[in-house]
């Protein structure tokens, strides 16, 4: 009767209201999207004009109009700031970089293995009354005190150079050992033993040949701390080995002496696989 009729009208009104709300929301959304599109179009056109202008100037050298005429001093200095920062980044790549401090200089020594940059170390020096090391991040097993005693007061450049040689050699030895563990873990028997200076390495490894594997053990000693190749190598064939494996051990020993550890492994493993 009347009651259900009333209910029906209520539901209809509710429904209509809801639909109206939905419609309004959609229209709002559409309007904001449209606005966004217009804003982006303007931004895009401005950038396009800017780039066109820059390219025109680049090619038409005869009429070089100053870029600065349409930039604020702030933009010019901002550009210059970015350039200076870029140049300082290049110094980082050269191995020796630094920053002036209130009481001296804070040097940064970077290390790398071929094209891969590794850790960098800082050395905060005070220059008055005499040159002295204020703070540093040089690892304790690098003979910093020895090197500074010898060079710091007389020749700072030499001091940094010698220190950088030590740090780079250490970083490269460490890199080789890390690479061996990461890339050739299948060929290693047990764990690779090393000291913190990474100038004493001992490991057991196996070489595949004709379906079998032959076990070797190697010991590498790097007595020159500024060198990343070993000075002493002992490779021996463990277990039952025939004469020819003694030759292989000698060949490996020679490889380890001449080239980086992970590269040597690459060489004899791929050679062995070729034979198979």
């Amino acid at each position: 009767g009347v009651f259900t009729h009333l209910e029906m009208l209520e539901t209809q009104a509710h429904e209509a209201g809801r639909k109206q709300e939905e419609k309004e929301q959609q229209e709002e959304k559409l309007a904001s999207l449209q606005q966004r599109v217009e804003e982006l179009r303007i931004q895009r056109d401005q950038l396009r004009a800017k780039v066109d202008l820059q390219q025109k100037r680049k090619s038409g050298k005869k009429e070089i109009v100053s870029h600065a005429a349409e930039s604020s001093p702030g933009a010019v200095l901002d550009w210059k700031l970015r350039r200076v920062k870029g140049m300082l980044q290049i110094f980082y790549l050269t191995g020796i970089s630094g920053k002036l401090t209130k009481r001296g200089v804070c040097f940064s020594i970077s290390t790398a293995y071929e094209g891969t940059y590794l850790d960098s170390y800082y050395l905060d020096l005070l220059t008055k009354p005499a040159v002295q090391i204020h703070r540093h991040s040089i690892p304790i097993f690098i003979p910093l005190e020895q090197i500074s005693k010898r060079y710091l007061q007389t020749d700072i450049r030499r001091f940094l150079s010698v220190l950088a040689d030590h740090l780079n050699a250490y970083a490269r030895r460490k890199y080789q050992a890390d690479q061996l563990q990461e890339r050739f873990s299948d060929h290693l028997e047990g764990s690779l033993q090393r000291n913190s200076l990474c100038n004493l390495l001992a490991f057991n490894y196996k070489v595949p040949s004709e379906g079998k594997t032959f076990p070797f053990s190697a010991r590498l000693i790097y007595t020159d701390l500024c060198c990343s190749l070993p000075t002493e190598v002992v490779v021996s064939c463990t277990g039952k080995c025939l004469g020819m494996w003694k030759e292989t051990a000698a060949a490996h020993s020679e490889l380890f002496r001449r080239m980086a550890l992970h590269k040597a492994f690459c060489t004899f493993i791929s050679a062995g696989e070729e034979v198979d």
Partner: protein
Amino acid sequence: MDISKCQAYEDEIKLLEEEIKLLAEQCEDIQQESTFYSEEEILMAIKAFQSKFQRESKEHESRSDLKDQLESLEADLSFLMKFTHIQFTSHSKRTVERTRNRTVQKHRISGKCHSLSFQLEFQLLEMQDKEKVSTVITDLSIVMESGEDSNVSKFVSRTEEHGDLLKFFRSLSSYAEWYEHRRSTFLHFK
């Protein structure tokens, strides 16, 4: 029908954002060239900051921060060039690839160490892995006037092959110093 209009706008927004990103990069690349602003223009900009008619405002404060920062970094750069005897005479770079955690830039640098000049080109790859940023040099190309010394050209090709930019600079430093010492000794006895 409204839904498809929405979609059309959203698609266009996406396209425009892409375009803007590319244009901004192009803008950036052109600005990377060292001759974008001349030395005079830069000096004029610095003077503008020092002008006593500058309005006291927040903008002015941040600008003088900019000036101080610039002076500080320029002092660092000047010190490094004097200390290492490495002077860079030009530097330009171009972004070759940029993704969320990988950037590759092509650099072209010329300079000299003492009296020996060099020109370098290389690609610098920077990768972000969690918090670590790794830096790798590839495609290194070195040009040096080696003159009479064949050791120099041998050394240059070896470091080029391995992309060993750091070793190049470290060795260049010591070689240039030795060369300089030899040259001045020779002149002394002339």
